[in-house]
């Protein structure tokens, strides 16, 4: 028969289990608390000839009813009747740990504090006045180092001394007058009743509205209707007074007073590096220009590294492979049609898309770097601020940033916006954020005509997309959707050095997506178009007389006002609706079939087909026009309608067309070509 039960209570990682092991050695067993999956550790030890029972309770920060751990710990303390509690407190973190201590004291328990990990605290130059702390709390405080077994004997002795003493618990925390008044009232009602818990504590829980305790009290057979009515009325009357927060606050200030003057820690760095950087990066006026500057650098690097340096290598590689494959097929005597499919369709079509892997790689490497460093959170905040000042939903910018990778997840992320207005507007403008699939289109045209200012043009396209998005958002919020936008708060985590793992993983997600699509959707689209381009067999393949050529020629006049009226370009735009990469793939295949003598390099063909002005209008068209099928279908799913995806397909097309025509017409008037 044990002479008493000791419970070990404390915050997670304060050293309870280490303590428990030091106390019990091998006299322990592990089970489960009834009804829950929380581990229960029990054991025993001998001290001065007597045997004591010890229970290691789950680590918690408080004793509410918010998690299984808390409920288990609380129930054991209240109903398991431990004779004494050893509260294991992390000495480097006393302030936080004392909140729990305060709750234990309020439960009327006998508590001793094991001020554990004092070795760690010393390393951090934290000074303690242990006697002072003990006096302020009114309970024994013993410094320990559980890992080395230091202080264990002392704390056990203190605990057992306390256990054998008859000590009426004092009220550690005095609350404000209102709360104390309510406590007195409830205590009066509870007086003389047989309660499962201490009276004052019960009164507090009733005021806080702790559901579990309320239920238990109501079920208690000794309570009368009066009390239940009183409780109900109390909550009715004081619903809006936030008494629970006042109670919590009082506990914190009790803990604060206890450490005041008894614990000295070296001054924390008050102005951190993060603060200093943020003073500039999140500045009301500088925030957006800095964001723009950073993005300009990102695009410049993307273009130079991804397109000019690595992109060239990739293009040469695919070209070389194409040459070898062609030779091999001729050598094998493969049928002409098959050779044409492999070379024009696969190598020049799908290959034209794959060539852009380095570009995608560099761009997303840089963006991942920004994200992992914590900068993207600032960008979102700065945009949130700007958009809010424009009367728009700020949080939308997060969806937009995700949309730069792929519009589909961008739109999906808008579903967390809880009012319809915000959700719809975000959904409708996300397609103006250029996704990874559009990057190959831009870079082909930039390489052909604007390679001297590659980064700048690329940046301008993205920026133009955002601008159009903002303008459309403003228009939609004034016309289609009215109402208040909700207000979000972002958490700005500290800046940090990005980890290679996170950056690479993030980048790979995008590269993988791009590659996977090239192998699936793009391949299918190109194959289909190839079939249409070589049929009927009676005509010259890839010519305007082919089925594809006739379809293209039929559509082409629509785009004549925008300056790119040839059938190939029109077909390519429509091929972009299943998937944007197919624009480049289609041009690659069709031009390769046509400009056999120029070699298969797409850039050269583009130079012959376009001028700088039409290249610009074509890029703007691809930036703005109808999003891909996947995006449209997710819009359909999210809005549960056919109307919205249809509306989106048409309004973006119209917008793209208008912008492209405007660029070409105005540009022509001004004498550009």
């Amino acid at each position, binding site marked *: 028969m044990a002479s008493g039960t000791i419970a070990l209570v404390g915050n997670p990682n304060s050293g309870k289990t280490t303590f428990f092991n030091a106390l019990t050695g091998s006299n322990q067993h592990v089970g489960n608390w009834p009804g829950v999956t929380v581990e229960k550790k029990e054991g025993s030890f001998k001290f001065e000839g007597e045997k004591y029972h010890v229970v290691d309770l789950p680590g918690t*920060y408080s004793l*509410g009813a*918010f998690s299984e751990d808390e409920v288990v710990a609380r129930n054991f303390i209240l109903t398991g009747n431990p004779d004494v509690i050893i509260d294991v407190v992390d000495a480097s973190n006393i*302030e*936080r740990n004392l*909140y729990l201590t305060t709750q234990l004291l309020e439960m009327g328990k006998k508590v001793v504090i094991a001020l554990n990990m004092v070795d760690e605290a010393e390393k951090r130059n934290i000074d303690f006045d242990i006697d002072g702390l003990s006096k302020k709390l009114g309970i024994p405080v013993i410094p320990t180092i559980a890992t080395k077994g230091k202080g264990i004997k002392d704390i056990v002795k203190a605990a057992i001394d306390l256990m054998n003493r008859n000590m009426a618990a004092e009220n550690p925390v005095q609350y404000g007058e209102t709360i104390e008044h309510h406590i007195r009232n409830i205590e009066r009602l509870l007086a003389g009743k047989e309660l499962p818990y201490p009276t004052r504590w019960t009164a507090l829980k009733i005021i806080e509205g702790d559901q579990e305790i309320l239920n238990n009290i109501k079920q208690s057979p000794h309570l009368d209707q009066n009390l239940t009515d009183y409780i109900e009325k109390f909550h009715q009357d004081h619903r*809006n*007074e*936030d008494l*629970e*927060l006042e109670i*919590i*606050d009082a506990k*914190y200030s009790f803990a*604060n007073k206890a450490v005041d003057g008894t614990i000295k820690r070296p001054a*924390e760095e*008050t*102005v*951190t590096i*993060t*603060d200093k950087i*943020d003073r500039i990066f*999140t500045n009301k006026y500088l925030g957006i220009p800095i964001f723009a500057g950073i993005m300009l650098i990102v695009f410049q690097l993307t273009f130079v590294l991804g397109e000019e340096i690595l992109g060239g290598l990739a293009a040469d590689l695919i070209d070389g492979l194409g040459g070898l494959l062609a030779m091999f097929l001729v050598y094998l005597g493969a049928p002409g049609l098959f050779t044409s499919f492999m070379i024009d369709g696969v190598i020049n079509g799908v290959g034209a898309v794959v060539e852009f892997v380095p570009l995608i790689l560099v761009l997303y490497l840089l963006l991942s770097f920004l994200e992992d460093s914590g900068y*993207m*959170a600032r960008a*979102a*905040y700065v945009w949130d*601020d700007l958009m*809010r000042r424009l009367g728009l939903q700020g*949080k939308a910018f*997060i969806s937009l*940033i*995700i949309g730069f*990778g*792929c519009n*589909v*997840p961008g739109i*999906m*992320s808008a*579903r*967390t916006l809880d009012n319809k207005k915000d959700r719809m507007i975000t959904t409708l403008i996300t397609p103006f954020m250029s996704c990874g699939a559009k990057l190959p289109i831009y870079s082909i045209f930039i390489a052909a005509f604007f390679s001297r200012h590659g980064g700048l043009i690329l940046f301008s396209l993205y920026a133009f997309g955002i601008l159009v998005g903002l303008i459309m958002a403003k228009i939609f919020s004034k016309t289609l959707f009215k109402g208040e936008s*909700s*207000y*979000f*708060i*972002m*958490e*700005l*985590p*500290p800046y940090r050095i990005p980890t290679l793992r996170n950056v690479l993983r*993030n980048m790979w*997600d*995008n590269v*993988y*997506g791009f590659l*996977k*699509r090239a192998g699936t959707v793009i391949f299918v689209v190109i194959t289909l178009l190839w079939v249409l381009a070589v049929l009927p067999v009676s005509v010259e393949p890839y010519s305007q007389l082919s089925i594809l050529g006739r379809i293209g020629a039929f559509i082409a006049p629509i785009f004549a006002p925008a300056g790119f009226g040839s059938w190939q370009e029109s077909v390519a735009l429509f091929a972009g609706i299943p998937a944007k990469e197919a624009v480049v793939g289609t041009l690659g295949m069709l031009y390769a079939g046509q400009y056999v003598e120029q070699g298969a390099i797409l850039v050269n063909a583009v130079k012959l087909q376009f001028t700088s002005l039409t290249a610009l209008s074509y890029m703007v068209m691809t930036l703005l026009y109808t999003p891909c099928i*996947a995006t449209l279908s*997710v819009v359909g*799913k999210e809005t549960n309608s056919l109307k919205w995806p249809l509306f989106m397909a048409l309004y973006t097309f119209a917008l793209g067309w208008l912008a492209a025509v405007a660029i070409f017409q105005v540009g022509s008037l001004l004498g550009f070509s």
Partner: protein
Amino acid sequence: MLRGILRIISRDGYISRSQLAKELNILKDIVDEGIMQLLRRGYLLEENTGEGCATFCVKCPFARNCSKEIVKTFKISAKGERYLKNR
């Protein structure tokens, strides 16, 4: 302290632990604790980006982008707003 945390969060429109700790003259751990209390009691609500993508687009090659959290966002609940206005 809790009111202070909520007031600063609402004023700045963002949560920066170091800023809160500095202004309220408390440790960052206590700031965390306070934010947790506000969350638990529904004065502050945590938003979940990217939830539910898993059900819809597991096959989408960009599925993992979907659930990434560029920045954690919160909202002050109606209860929180009222608490700030009281007194």
